[in-house]
């Protein structure tokens, strides 16, 4: 069963407090306070108090004043005023000003209080839900902004390049120059294509459901290996794979593939071309219901000051190679879904090691 709803009751008359607590303590967790400082103390200690009842007539301060003050520092708890008939003007004013959710007439009867709690709790939940949704929306909105910004560069950029090339092609007679330009145009188009494919990954991660299945890492590596073997051969990069798996491992295969292929692509992409011995190494070890994966390269390395940012959307730490700024962001999001995490260790001009840990689901 879920936890009891936490309620704070503020009244300067001790017998009222005792009465309130006595009749409601079985179904709710009741905090009582006979002074405003005591009440504030409770609110400080229990951030999850959902409902505050307060008597209108308190020494030194009215309940309305207290609520007006408290709603600035503690906006979430729902405020209910307890008041005698003669205070009705003050009550109306408080409701109109939006300080309180509703009021209960004194002397109160239990059934009124319980119905007030039910209503207030619904209101509280709706409000909290709204806040969560608001935060999610804000995050989505921020990303949308980044997208809108990147569209002008990552999509429009290659297109204006192609337009520019077509423009000057009319004035170039030398066939070799035309060929050189076609080669660059092709590169530009490939970059645009990669961007769009990555964007697709981004959306499937955001919206996609997990499909859990048994993972055999040796088989998975057999699927991935051919994607890199040509590149490895042409660029003289030694590619080694080691899989140690003796137990079952369950995971979402497409997320796992996305993580591994992004990290492997990077390992191949950011090699130091000047180096004589170039290698990419992947080691997978499945033990105690979790997979630990090392992807190690002899590449250019990542500057220490950039490591904190490489997992951000559209961040790129290298100008040597064509990147979309999507890859590691997608890796991070996929790992978030799988409850895994990633560590980076990198030495400039020597290489980088990415360590990924994913629990079996």
């Amino acid at each position, binding site marked *: 069963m879920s936890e009891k709803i936490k309620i704070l009751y503020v009244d300067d008359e001790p017998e009222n407090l005792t009465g309130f607590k006595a009749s409601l303590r079985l179904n709710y967790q009741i905090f009582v306070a006979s002074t405003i400082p005591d009440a504030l103390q409770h609110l400080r200690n229990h951030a999850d108090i959902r409902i505050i009842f307060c008597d209108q007539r308190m020494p030194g301060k009215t309940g309305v004043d207290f609520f007006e003050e408290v709603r600035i520092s503690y906006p979430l708890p729902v405020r209910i005023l307890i008041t005698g008939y003669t205070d009705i003007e003050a009550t109306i004013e408080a409701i109109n000003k939006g300080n309180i959710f509703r009021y209960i007439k004194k002397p109160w009867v239990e059934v009124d209080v319980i119905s007030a709690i039910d209503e207030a709790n619904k209101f509280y939940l709706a409000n909290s839900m709204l806040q969560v949704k608001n935060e999610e929306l804000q995050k989505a909105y921020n990303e949308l902004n980044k997208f809108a*910004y*990147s569209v*002008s*560069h990552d999509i*429009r*950029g*290659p*297109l*204006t*390049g*192609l*337009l*520019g*090339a077509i*423009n*000057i092609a009319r*004035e*170039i007679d030398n066939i070799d120059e035309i060929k*050189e*330009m076609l080669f*660059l*145009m092709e*590169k*530009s188009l490939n970059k645009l294509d990669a961007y769009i494919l990555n964007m697709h990954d981004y959306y499937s991660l955001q919206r996609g459901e997990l499909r859990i299945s048994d993972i055999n890492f040796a088989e998975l590596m057999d699927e991935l290996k051919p994607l890199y073997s040509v590149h490895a051969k042409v660029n003289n990069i030694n590619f080694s794979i080691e899989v140690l798996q003796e137990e079952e491992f369950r995971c979402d295969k497409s997320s796992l593939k996305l993580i591994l292929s992004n990290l492997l692509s990077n390992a191949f992409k950011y090699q130091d071309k000047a180096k004589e011995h170039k290698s990419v190494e992947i080691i997978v070890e499945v033990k105690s219901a979790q997979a630990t994966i090392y992807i190690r390269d002899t590449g250019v390395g990542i500057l220490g000051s950039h490591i904190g940012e490489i997992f951000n959307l559209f961040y*790129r*730490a*290298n*100008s*040597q190679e064509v*990147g979309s700024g999507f890859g590691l962001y997608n890796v991070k999001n996929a790992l978030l879904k799988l409850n895994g995490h990633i560590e980076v260790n990198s030495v400039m001009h020597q290489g980088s090691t990415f360590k990924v840990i994913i629990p079996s689901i």
Partner: protein
Amino acid sequence: MALSFIVIDESELDCFIARKIIQNASKGFDVEVFQNPLLAFDRIKTENYPGKFDVIHIILLDLQMPLMNGFEFVEAFEKLEVDIQQHYHIHILSSTRNKNDINRLLDYASVFSVIEKPLTAEKLQLVIKNL
């Protein structure tokens, strides 16, 4: 007065196009291209100009680049000694149409204009005419 051009753009194709258009405009123009903005900046910072006031260097600068974007480049450039700065005219060459960015860029003392990609012979003529 002699003109020389420095193109700073991450895209190889855009560098190629800019170089072609500048060379088509006049065989006498010097063109240097940089795909890495940091290298370009180092080059400008350390270049010596013993009394060479007769050469103006026009920088065609892209905005979104890794390591150092166009804004960062301009900020860093404006921190250089005035003696160095006065040899250069910065023109932004970008695919952006973002009004905020364009206005922000034009607020920099060292930015002469913002040109929308792709660069064409006509757009280059405007830069040369308005020196």
